């Protein structure tokens, strides 16, 4: 006894690892429903916008094995769902607004019957003009939000005085989540008119609430349970809801269990992506490359409903500064409404889309001024007051940028390698290399302040074993592993004595989505608070068993499966829990936590939206071929700040995985639509996420040492999203390599994703200019970049 190692702050395996590798870990669609389970399928709109003139299921209903076909009119409660504004018809009403919008729900004995039924449903459409891009939306004044403006100082004046003025446009593409497990749900009718809904969702409380609203019943009749998700990345924050609600609707209507599962093509076409962004900016710099002023307009493609587009845009605005102090600024953002799938949360939640814009400005400024890319960033970092105030007024404390910068540049041999690469490039005609450094600062908290709350329920049984429930969901990020470690640490128990239960709304109610990288921060505190309360009760019981005074009882520690004094005298945990039961003391406790002191006034564009900031930086080296545009990342060095890591092995996994996902967004992942709004890249044969061969063989990831974060669970920091943006370092590396093909005066326009085709185009442009007259290399306020055609 007493030999168990405290699981906190040390490497751990994933709590479900053995289940994963043996196939025993169950996902929603792996649950075998009762034999009368129906398969749901959805008939969706083939048009980007149309009026529905007729809908009839008469023929489909005659097909044997078809239990029901439901339209909007068959919904007993509200047909409108949505995470913030309920503007999304669960089933189409008078009009359809995007290809893939749900029109009819088919309930059949199996998927094949459902497909046959779908062919027999008659829907008559009258096609209407559709808006299929941000550019078209801007022209048509089609927006889903009012502009959100964050401003400070006198931008126009500052820009006028700047030694270097850049005017440019920048676009970033969308990104499919490509979680390996597509959207799925299983709805099971229960007694008293209730339903159990198994859902692959990041937000069981929202699934519960929306199911209740759609069905017109109280939330107490719905239990939503999440066994685990096969990946989510934001794609199941709001968009699992629709499919769970359809399954619930089918189950209530037929009285039979209903299974809903999207195949890959359906998932990719029907559900939304990372928001594509278009931005135009003016940036003013002094001669040393310090940014003086930034005037930016950003537009995201929200798709056909609001979903989470408004907060995604907010976060993009909040991250237009990335790691840099900007004295005078005007940031304006607006969500375009288009007739494409409704875009949604995706790791970074707009942050990456905002940050790539200022990074573009810094690249261009560094190239214009002949300043090294890492150096220009160093000169612009947030620092002591007054250079510590974010655009929205929050003051930065404990800024770790300078430290990370210095340590990473040394550990990655940045300067030496940069000069080696420059000589390599001089010696090569068709192969060029590039290296770049990029920092990341990322705000942690839901920007809608009330979402920053969490609950937990910890149950101790009289034999001293424990079940832990919390409001967070497991999507692979290791949240459950961390919560188990926190619970075992608090109660001083071996991990084998603690069991993580499926996330369920009947255990912890009214939860927030597991999102915004906040899962561990919020739920960890809630689990700890529940444990603290239980410990107080057990301490009293143990003290009385040991005959200790109240003062002495305070010295009792929970460790190694014992409740004992520092001297070692004490009791085994189960002896105390059993005694507690005998003494009629409760062995269950809820824990609750809310993040203190965060607020934001959207109208004023001012507040303290974040509890703290995560920091990190990456150096990426790559090689490109100037004849084909192909590339390979050769080496990546990352130094990332996760505070005092709860479980380093889990955090390293988040950093590596986040980086590679970011690499995909910036390079090979390209969403393409045809002229009718039909997605062309709806399966892995045409949509290319990184494969094993795309990662650098030399991939060095380190955690910032001695980085304890105040006021966060056990000194840790959030890690889910921030590392995604470390991949931005590839953009600078591409620019370095591409520019080696041409004269230094040539301005390089490089949007993302940087596909092989984009690289080849850029190289051909760089090369073609060599024969052109030299551009004016003198830096003055009149030199501006070429502005590409207006959208």
């Amino acid at each position, binding site marked *: 006894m007493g030999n168990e190692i405290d699981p906190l702050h040390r490497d751990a*395996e*994933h709590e*479900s*690892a*053995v*289940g*994963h*590798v*043996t*196939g*025993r870990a169950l*996902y929603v669609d792996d649950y*075998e429903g009762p034999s009368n389970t129906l398969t749901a399928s959805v008939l969706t709109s083939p048009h980007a916008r149309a009026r529905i003139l007729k809908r009839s299921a008469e023929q489909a209903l005659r097909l044997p094995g078809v239990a029901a076909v439901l339209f909007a009119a068959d919904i007993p409660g509200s047909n409108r769902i949505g995470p913030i504004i309920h503007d999304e018809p669960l089933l189409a009403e008078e009009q359809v607004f995007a290809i893939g919008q749900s029109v009819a729900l088919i309930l059949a004995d199996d998927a094949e019957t459902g*497909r046959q039924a779908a062919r027999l449903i008659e829907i008559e459409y009258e096609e209407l003009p559709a808006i299929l891009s941000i550019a078209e939306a801007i022209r048509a004044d089609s927006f889903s939000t009012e502009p959100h403006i964050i401003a400070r100082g006198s931008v126009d004046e500052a820009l006028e005085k700047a030694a270097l003025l850049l005017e440019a446009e920048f676009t970033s593409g969308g990104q499919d*989540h*490509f*979680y*390996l*497990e*597509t959207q799925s749900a299983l709805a099971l009718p229960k007694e008293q008119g209730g339903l159990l809904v198994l859902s692959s969702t990041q937000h069981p409380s929202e699934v519960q609430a929306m199911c209740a609203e759609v069905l017109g019943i109280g939330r107490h009749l719905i239990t939503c349970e999440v066994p*685990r998700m*096969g*990946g989510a*990345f934001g794609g199941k924050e709001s968009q699992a809801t629709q499919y769970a609600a359809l399954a619930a609707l089918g189950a209530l209507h037929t009285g039979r269990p209903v299974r809903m599962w999207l195949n*890959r*093509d359906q998932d990719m076409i029907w559900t939304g992506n990372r928001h594509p962004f278009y931005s135009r900016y003016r940036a003013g710099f002094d001669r040393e490359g310090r940014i003086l002023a930034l005037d930016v307009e950003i537009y995201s493609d929200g798709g056909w409903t609001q979903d989470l587009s408004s907060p995604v845009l907010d976060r993009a605005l909040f991250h237009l500064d990335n790691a840099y102090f900007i004295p005078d600024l005007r940031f304006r953002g607006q969500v375009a409404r288009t007739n494409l799938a409704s875009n949604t949360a995706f790791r970074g939640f707009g942050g990456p889309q905002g940050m790539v814009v200022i990074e573009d400005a810094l690249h261009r400024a560094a190239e214009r001024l002949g300043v090294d890319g890492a150096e220009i960033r160093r000169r612009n970092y947030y620092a002591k007051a007054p250079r510590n105030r974010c655009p929205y007024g929050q003051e930065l404390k404990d800024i770790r940028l300078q430290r990370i910068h210095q340590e990473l540049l040394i550990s990655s041999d940045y300067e030496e390698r940069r000069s080696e690469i420059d000589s390599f490039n001089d010696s*090569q*005609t*068709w192969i060029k290399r590039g290296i770049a450094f990029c920092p990341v600062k990322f705000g942690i908290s839901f920007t809608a302040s009330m979402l920053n709350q969490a609950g937990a329920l910890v149950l101790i049984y009289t034999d001293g074993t424990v079940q832990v429930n919390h409001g967070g969901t497991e*999507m692979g990020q*290791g949240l459950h592993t961390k919560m188990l470690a926190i619970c075992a640490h608090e109660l001083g128990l071996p991990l084998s004595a603690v069991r993580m239960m499926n996330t369920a709304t009947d255990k912890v109610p009214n939860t927030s989505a597991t999102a915004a990288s906040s899962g561990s921060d919020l739920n960890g505190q809630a689990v700890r608070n529940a444990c603290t309360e239980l410990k107080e009760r057990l301490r009293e019981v143990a003290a009385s068993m040991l005959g200790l005074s109240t003062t002495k009882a305070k010295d009792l520690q929970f460790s190694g499966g014992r409740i004992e004094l520092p001297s070692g005298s004490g009791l085994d945990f189960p002896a105390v829990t059993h005694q507690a039961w005998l003494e009629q003391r409760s062995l269950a406790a809820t824990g609750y936590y809310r993040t203190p002191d965060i607020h934001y006034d959207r109208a004023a564009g001012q507040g303290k939206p974040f509890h703290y900031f995560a920091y990190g930086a990456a150096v990426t080296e790559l*090689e*490109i*071929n100037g*004849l*084909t545009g*192909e590339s*390979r990342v050769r080496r990546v060095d990352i130094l990332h700040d996760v505070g005092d890591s709860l479980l380093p092995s889990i955090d390293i*996994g988040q950093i*590596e*995985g986040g*980086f590679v*996902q970011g690499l995909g967004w910036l390079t090979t992942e390209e969403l393409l639509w045809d002229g009718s709004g039909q997605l*062309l890249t709806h*399966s*892995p*044969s*045409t949509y*290319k*996420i*990184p*494969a*094993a*061969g795309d*990662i650098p063989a030399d*991939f060095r990831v380190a955690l910032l040492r001695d980085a304890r974060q105040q006021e966060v669970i056990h000194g840790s920091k959030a890690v889910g999203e921030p590392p995604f943006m470390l991949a931005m370092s590839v953009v600078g590396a591409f620019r370095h390599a591409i520019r080696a093909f041409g004269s230094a005066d040539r301005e390089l326009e490089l949007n993302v994703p940087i*596909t*092989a*085709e984009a690289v*080849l185009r850029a190289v051909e442009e760089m090369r073609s200019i060599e024969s052109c007259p030299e551009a004016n290399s003198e830096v003055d306020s009149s030199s501006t970049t070429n502005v590409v055609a207006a959208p």
Partner: protein
Amino acid sequence: MPSLQFTLNGRLVVLDAISTNTTLLQYLRSSGHPGTKEGCAEGDCGACSVALLDSGPGDRPAWRAVNSCLIFLPMLNGREVWSVEGLASGDQLHPAQQALVQRLGSQCGYCTPGVVMSLFETCYRQDLDVDWKVDDQLCGNLCRCTGYRPIREAALSLAEAVPKDHFSERLQGPAAPCSPLHYDYQGQSYYCPNQLADLWQAMKAHPEARLIAGGTDLALTVTKHFQPLPQLISLEGLNCLRGTSKTDHGLRIGATTTLSQLEASAATELPLLARMLRFFASRQIKNRATVGGNLCNASPIGDLAPVLMALNAELVLLSDRGERRVPLDRFFLDYRHTALQPGEILAAVEVPRPGTDWRLGAYKVSKRRELDISAVCAGMAVQIDPKGTVVEARLCYGGMAATTRRATKTEEALRGRPWTLTEVEQAASLTAEDFAPINDQRGSQWFRATLARNLLIGFFHETREQSLRKLPERPSSTLVLS
């Protein structure tokens, strides 16, 4: 009533009332094996991978990871399959599983069963001696969570030694080829003859039947387009169609030789072909896809055709009327249309060994290096006399037209001219006259046209010193220029 039989996780499965179009994945998931997942139903993600006992080098048995989403149950008749559920014995994990657990090679765990099966194959392969083969082994398994580093490390550790267990013991035993089968179910039929005479008879009796071998493309008809394939005739049971053999002039490749079976002989006999195979599909696909399937499917973006065409391959076509030969550059008549007559099959491909006076290159450009479909692929062979004059040029492109085609005008411009950069650059501009490529999701017209030109220029640079350059371990490009 005829039944089909196979061994799953060491236990015999006998089925006699199941559709011939049922995939192994569907069967597994509906028979209490939910560990195997569907991630795409097109062989592009690997979540459904299982292990199949197949013949490897020297016709010895070998464990092969395959996509269960693309295998119809009758294809398994007589064969041995293991799914993720069968690997551990009790609490004792298989080394492939243990390696992933230890290294945190799973996060969400959904791709993991498939990754495990690829690592399972890794354990029993003895030819994973270089880094690129590890990328090749793993590229058929997409993982969205981990960033692959721990999975690669697990694979590297497993490639070192073969575990001593019942799986390695099994490899000492006999191979388990598919057994002949004639299976009917509700108007569907599946024939797998083991003699040519039976094949001709079946083809006559069912002229509407589709021929199938690995099925890695044909199966998509069912799994992606939800169209039935009621009549199928498999060529997998015909031994005379499988395997490679050296001939006086080069290599003869049986039509149902899988791409992974081809790798070893290509490496020694036809290095140009081996080079293309590195960027050809995933391990799981290579373990099932056949040379004949890749050619007869006549896709303009099939990756074998340009290389084989550049090498002046000849096709041996067989029917009950006998044999005829067609040069590959006359085989493709139109988009997905070949010179095969009704009742005729592709039996073999004969590839002459190029002389030392030939310069050779094989290229593939796609969005992603591994497991992607070409924007443009090319096979190039140029014969140069001692004076440096081009005698013959065979510049074959995929992705540039409705079929794989030679760049005839460009070739003509090169013949009889000195093999110099100036001449090559001039000729390369003629690719614009040879081809009018299309815009699609894999690349724009501009991209394809530019690649067609640049690949030829790159070919010139690449082969300046050597007639055929070896690819480096982890090349940044299809062209070897540094």
